[in-house]
């Protein structure tokens, strides 16, 4: 069979015995089939096939049509096709049966077919059953006894038939099994005694039944109820009202707890998986993972412990969740429903209360052998006391006092990150293969999420180390800088202090000569203003005010400053030239600070030509990158090795504090500009400042200063 969705099993006592036997073998493990094969039904293969096809809504879609045709051909040749049912055995477990009855005209016919569309087929199974009763109301007598009991017991769902007084007139084995009733005594019992009270109340069943019209049909899906043993279950209930004596209501009750749980688990797996990948807080994530493993609507384990591998290869317990006693367990589980779990998990992934964490700090060293043996590659069920149990697995299992635990490795990128040990110490629910499969999927998602969170944590740690080291460096550097400042300042104020102190002493010793006193006092005044200048420089550099920008004519700033410099320049036999481009656009700058720039650059230029005399030239012009302002001298130039240093604070070419160019650079950068220097030995040096050209309409404020 190509189509894995479809598995066909024919069970009939037909003319060809062989067919029946062979097919029965293949189907023997499916409950409900034997009942039919044992029946006295006879039908021709042709009838059967046509009958069968009539009940397949869309045989092409199910991939059955071809199969049936081929089957029919082969049957005629009395040859049995080799069915793929053996190969399909694993699938059989998930496939449910459907019982079909048709053409009940004296001679009963039987057919069972099955495939894995559980919901739809069950529904149809039940519909056919309804139809059977509706069509054959007058033929009930004998047929009822010979057939319906078998049918009723064959249907793979709990079925109960009520009379007009809402008392049981028939209930199938599954029904009795499900609700713990004695099949011998169930007939005649009132409805409220056979169905769980919570279920009857949930939909107000008695009233709902009485309100049903003739031949009405009603169904309730996802009906929560308590099974009387403290466990939340989920049911689907279908009711049809018949017009047959004794058979007033047929109730089919299907337990969809497992099914809903599986669907839910799948959906939850997906949702939680998504959420987990984005959760970088490790503790929060671990708690979410354990909640998934333990919550009833999740994987439903009673308790779970999570251990993470540390750097020494030791599995260390990080967290455990789960109730301590069966009573607490019952309380916890009945509290958390499907929706609640999802809300709870979403909330716990975003908000986190660490006090919920229980942890006993168990440590399990892993030996190399176990890691390489592949034992911890996928979820494994560990039964204690079994012979030949790996000692590490045994130690892990000792996290719990349960006889059976599941050890669920968390793996990401082929690396074991940790394990979850989960048990069912209170409910003793066995661990099914299906559950293991889903756990395995879950574990790989959880593993990736843990790996992400771990990587994030490592990055964060590394970052904080780097930050620490950097802070340390910055502190050390700042201290060094402070030391340098102190040394510079000390040196600079030493000379004026010696002069001031010395002259003050001379005056106080002999103030008789007014002329001499005046000279000496003049020196003191001069030296004090020198001290003040030094201090101002230091303060300008260490705590300069923020620039106060206004729209300014740069040429005007340059011109005014050039005038200030001229006396100093003339003393050094330096001529000052201004080469300013007319009509420059107004520039967004702090005129006071820009004057300082022009002054410092100009003064440096004059000092460079102190011994030789020369030309100091200021120039402005518009450039591509912005406004260009240049200060050039014809001095000796600056040596290349010094070029890299000159903008550094406290680097001085000619004595002094060495702050002039540092202040210039700082101001230019605060204006968003750049400063560069080019020098030709013996020919001179040019400093070039480029200020960003801003249009007046893109900046706030009005035009000022010209």
């Amino acid at each position, binding site marked *: 069979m190509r189509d894995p969705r479809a598995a066909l099993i024919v069970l009939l006592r037909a003319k060809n015995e062989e067919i029946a036997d062979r097919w029965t073998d293949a189907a023997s493990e499916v409950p409900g089939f034997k009942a039919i094969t044992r029946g006295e039904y006879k039908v021709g293969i042709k009838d059967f096939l046509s009958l069968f096809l009539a009940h397949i809504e869309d045989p092409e879609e199910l991939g059955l049509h071809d199969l049936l045709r081929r089957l029919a051909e082969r049957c005629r040749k009395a040859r049995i096709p080799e069915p793929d049912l053996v190969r399909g055995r694993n699938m059989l477990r998930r496939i449910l049966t459907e019982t079909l009855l048709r053409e009940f005209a004296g001679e009963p016919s039987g057919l069972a077919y099955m495939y894995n569309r559980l919901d739809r087929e069950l529904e149809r199974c039940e519909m056919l059953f309804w139809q059977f009763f509706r069509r054959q109301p007058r033929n009930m007598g004998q047929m009822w006894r010979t057939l319906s009991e078998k049918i009723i017991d064959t249907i793979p769902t709990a079925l109960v038939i009520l009379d007009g007084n809402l008392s049981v007139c028939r209930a199938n084995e599954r029904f009795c099994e499900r609700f713990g009733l004695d099949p011998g005594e169930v007939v005649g019992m009132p409805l409220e005694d056979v169905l769980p009270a919570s279920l009857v109340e949930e939909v107000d069943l008695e009233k709902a039944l009485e309100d049903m019209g003739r031949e009405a049909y009603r169904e309730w899906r996802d009906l929560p109820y308590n099974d009387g043993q403290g466990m939340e279950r989920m049911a689907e209930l279908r009711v049809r009202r018949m017009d047959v004596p004794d058979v007033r209501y047929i109730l089919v009750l299907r337990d969809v707890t497992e099914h809903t749980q599986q669907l839910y688990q799948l959906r939850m797996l997906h949702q939680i998986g998504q959420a987990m990948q984005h959760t970088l807080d490790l503790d929060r994530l671990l708690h979410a993972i354990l909640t998934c493993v333990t919550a009833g609507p999740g994987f439903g384990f009673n308790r779970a412990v999570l251990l993470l591998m540390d750097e020494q290869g030791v599995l260390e317990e990080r967290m455990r969740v789960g109730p301590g006693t069966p009573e607490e367990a019952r309380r916890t589980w009945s509290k958390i429903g499907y929706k609640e779990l999802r809300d709870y998990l979403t909330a716990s992934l975003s908000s986190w209360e660490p006090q919920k964490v229980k942890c006993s700090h168990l440590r399990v060293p892993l030996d190399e052998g176990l890691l390489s043996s592949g034992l911890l590659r996928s979820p494994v069920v560990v039964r204690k006391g079994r012979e030949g149990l790996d000692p590490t697995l045994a130690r892990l299992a000792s996290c719990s006092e349960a006889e059976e635990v599941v050890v669920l490795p968390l793996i990401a990128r082929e690396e074991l990150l940790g394990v979850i040990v989960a048990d069912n110490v209170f409910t003793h629910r066995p661990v099914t293969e299906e559950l293991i499969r889903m756990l395995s999927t879950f574990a790989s998602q959880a593993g990736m999420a843990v790996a992400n969170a771990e990587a994030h944590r490592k990055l964060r740690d590394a970052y904080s180390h780097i930050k620490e080291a950097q802070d340390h460096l910055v502190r050390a550097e700042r201290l060094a800088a402070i030391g340098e400042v102190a040394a510079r300042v000390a040196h600079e104020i030493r000379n*004026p202090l010696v002069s*001031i102190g010395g002259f003050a002493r001379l005056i106080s010793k002999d103030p008789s000569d007014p002329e001499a006193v005046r000279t000496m006092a003049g020196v003191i005044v001069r030296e004090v203003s020198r001290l003040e200048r030094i201090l101002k420089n230091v303060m300008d550099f260490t705590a300069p005010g923020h620039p106060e920008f206004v729209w300014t004519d740069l040429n005007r700033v340059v011109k005014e400053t050039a005038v200030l410099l001229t006396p100093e320049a003339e003393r050094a036999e330096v001529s000052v030239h201004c080469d300013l481009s007319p009509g420059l656009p107004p520039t967004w700058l702090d005129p006071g600070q820009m004057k300082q720039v022009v002054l410092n650059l100009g003064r440096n230029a004059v000092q460079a030509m102190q011994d030789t005399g020369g030309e100091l030239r200021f120039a402005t012009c518009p450039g591509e990158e912005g406004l260009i302002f240049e200060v050039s001298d014809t001095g000796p130039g600056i040596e290349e090795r010094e070029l890299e240093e000159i903008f550094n604070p406290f680097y001085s070419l000619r004595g002094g504090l060495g702050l002039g160019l540092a202040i210039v650079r700082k101001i230019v950068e605060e204006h968003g500009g750049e400063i560069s220097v080019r020098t030709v030995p013996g020919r001179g040096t040019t400093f070039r400042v480029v200020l960003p050209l801003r249009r007046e309409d893109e900046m706030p404020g009005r035009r000022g200063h010209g």
Partner: protein
Amino acid sequence: MGKRLLVVEDDESEGLYYKLALEREGYTVDVVDNADDALAYVKENPPDAVVLDINMPGKDGIEALGEIMAVNPELPVVINTAYSAYKDNFMTWSAVAYVVKSSDISELKEVLAKVLRG
């Protein structure tokens, strides 16, 4: 006629101060503000003693000391600097004395008196 001193000091105010203060002690004082002028002075017109600053732009006092010693090994040179750290520089050991600058020049006066007595 008092003894003749040469003060080598790049700071103008300080130079003036040493000149006035030492002249009051009866010395005849000339001041130059750099090492080259000091060497030329010593060659042409050897003073009785030299008071030498170390921290100067261009050639510093230690270099100047070496050159002066080469021209006139007998000439007493007193180092007068703001920093005591240069004492560690063995070049300074050829000076007759090492005085740390202060506005109080009594130490300098004592040293000069002692040096010039002999």
